[in-house]
């Protein structure tokens, strides 16, 4: 029997729970399945995330998150029951990864610890397979073993403190105001942290702010600068109504207190029903706006200088309009800047166009994020952090 390596998609979790990789290997060996995958609920408890897999080695980075209730794994999680899919069809199995791997039949079971749902364990075959009670019982037992393994992380005191600090730098659950649906993805290039960030927050006077930012560099050092910028921007936004003024002040702050640091930021403000938006860009790609079902267009916003260079540069605020039911998409350069040697000679604008096309074919913000990553990044392993945020007017 051929031994296959476990691919750890969430290094931190797999390292903290060695049992996960062991059990996955046993599941794969015992069932002879073409793929075996563990997904866990994220902190918001609304989205499942693939953490480890055997067989889905070409997993698309960033396409490994499935909203609760949607698609196959989402249905297993929501119903807390085993689910069998005899024939994988696109709408049922929302994750394009499974489709791309030619998986034809699937069996998934919930991973439950006590009364708490932790995630989903599934196996799949590239041929049509008749799952019976025996397989379901077997998989359920392995899921119970996973529940045990996940209850006890292998973390010592020093690591625990570092992890707590790191977690404080991760994106928080999205604030969703009435009238606007939001979804976002954050895919760091290295480990769990990087210099990209997105932020959505409200301000007195019914203002809503959206931010997309990118500290030059990645890893822990950039994440620390990012944390400071994220916090300072909120403070300036509280006191200043004009986006250009907010970015000007942020620039002065970074130039003085974090010399040498560089960052790009896109900052937008709006009010219910989120038709009119005011944006300012500091070296950041402008957002895309799409009418429902239509190809998106970039907002006519020529970026001003990135932050950290010269705080005296003039900054401008531009107005953009999002139609009813329409989409607004903010992203960082990691999404559209690609290596020439990956057999793809297209430039940045071709990738922006791919993103614009992807937004024409989606019904909601969550699918917008998924398609942004699968259509533009695909299975290209990015070397820069990627962040994307999609908002849809629902008012």
């Amino acid at each position: 029997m051929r031994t296959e390596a476990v691919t750890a998609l969430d290094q931190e979790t797999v390292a903290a729970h060695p049992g996960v990789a062991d059990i996955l290997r046993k599941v794969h060996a015992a069932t002879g399945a073409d793929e075996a995958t563990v997904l866990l609920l994220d902190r918001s408890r609304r989205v499942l995330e693939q953490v480890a897999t055997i067989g889905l080695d070409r997993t698309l980075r960033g396409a490994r998150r499935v909203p609760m209730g949607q698609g196959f794994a989402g249905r297993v999680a929501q119903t807390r029951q085993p689910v069998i899919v005899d024939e994988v069809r696109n709408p049922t199995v929302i994750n394009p990864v499974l489709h791309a791997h030619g998986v034809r039949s699937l069996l998934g079971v919930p991973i439950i610890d006590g009364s708490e749902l932790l995630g989903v364990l599934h196996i799949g075959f590239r041929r049509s397979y008749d799952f019976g009670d025996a397989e379901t019982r077997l998989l359920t037992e392995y899921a119970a073993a996973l529940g045990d393994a996940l209850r006890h992380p292998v973390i010592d005191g020093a690591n625990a403190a570092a992890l707590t600090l790191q977690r404080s730098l991760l994106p928080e659950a999205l604030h969703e105001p009435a009238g606007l649906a939001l979804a976002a993805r954050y895919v760091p290039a290295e480990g769990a942290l990087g210099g990209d960030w997105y932020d959505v927050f409200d301000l007195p006077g019914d203002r809503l702010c959206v931010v997309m930012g990118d500290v030059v560099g990645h890893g822990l050092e950039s994440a620390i600068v990012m944390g400071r910028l994220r916090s300072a921007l909120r403070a300036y936004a509280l006191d200043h109504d004009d986006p250009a003024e907010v970015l000007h002040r942020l620039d002065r702050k970074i130039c003085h207190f974090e010399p040498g640091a560089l960052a790009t930021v896109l900052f937008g403000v709006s009010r219910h029903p989120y038709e009119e938006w005011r944006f300012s860009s500091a070296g950041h790609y402008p957002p895309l706006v799409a009418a429902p079902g239509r190809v998106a267009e970039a907002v006519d916003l020529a970026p001003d200088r990135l932050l950290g260079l010269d705080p005296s540069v003039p900054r401008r605020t531009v107005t953009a309009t999002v139609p009813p039911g329409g989409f607004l998409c903010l992203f960082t350069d990691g999404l559209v800047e690609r290596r020439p040697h990956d057999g793809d000679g297209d430039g940045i604008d071709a990738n922006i166009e791919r993103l614009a096309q992807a937004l024409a074919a989606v019904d909601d913000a969550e699918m917008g994020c998924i398609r942004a990553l699968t259509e533009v990044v695909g299975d290209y392993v990015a070397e820069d952090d990627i962040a994307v945020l999609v908002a849809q007017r629902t008012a």
Partner: protein
Amino acid sequence: MRGLAAADVRVVEDKRDMELTISRRDEGGTALLTLVGSIDLISRQDLITAGKDALGEGDALGLDMQGVDFMDSMGIGALIELARHAEALGQSFAITDKSPRVRRVLQATGLDDAWQPA
């Protein structure tokens, strides 16, 4: 990764085989560096070293970037570092030629009018 034998678990890894060739020509006090290839996390260091060496030996630095087929924000950081170094020494720094990729990335970061040749 603690608790796991390295051979047992394969982590999704990035491929790196970027190359940047730097050639230098000195003309009456000005050093002109011709760059061909990709500027990324690793090759940017070579660019910074070559640029600082040139500034230490001459009066001005020019970069011919027509042959740069890849550059991202890490590359921008390297250019800014060289520009600052030149400024500190009271010397001039300019980009004499840009590839479409370089032009696009500079435009995207609001630097399209920066470092123009005199």
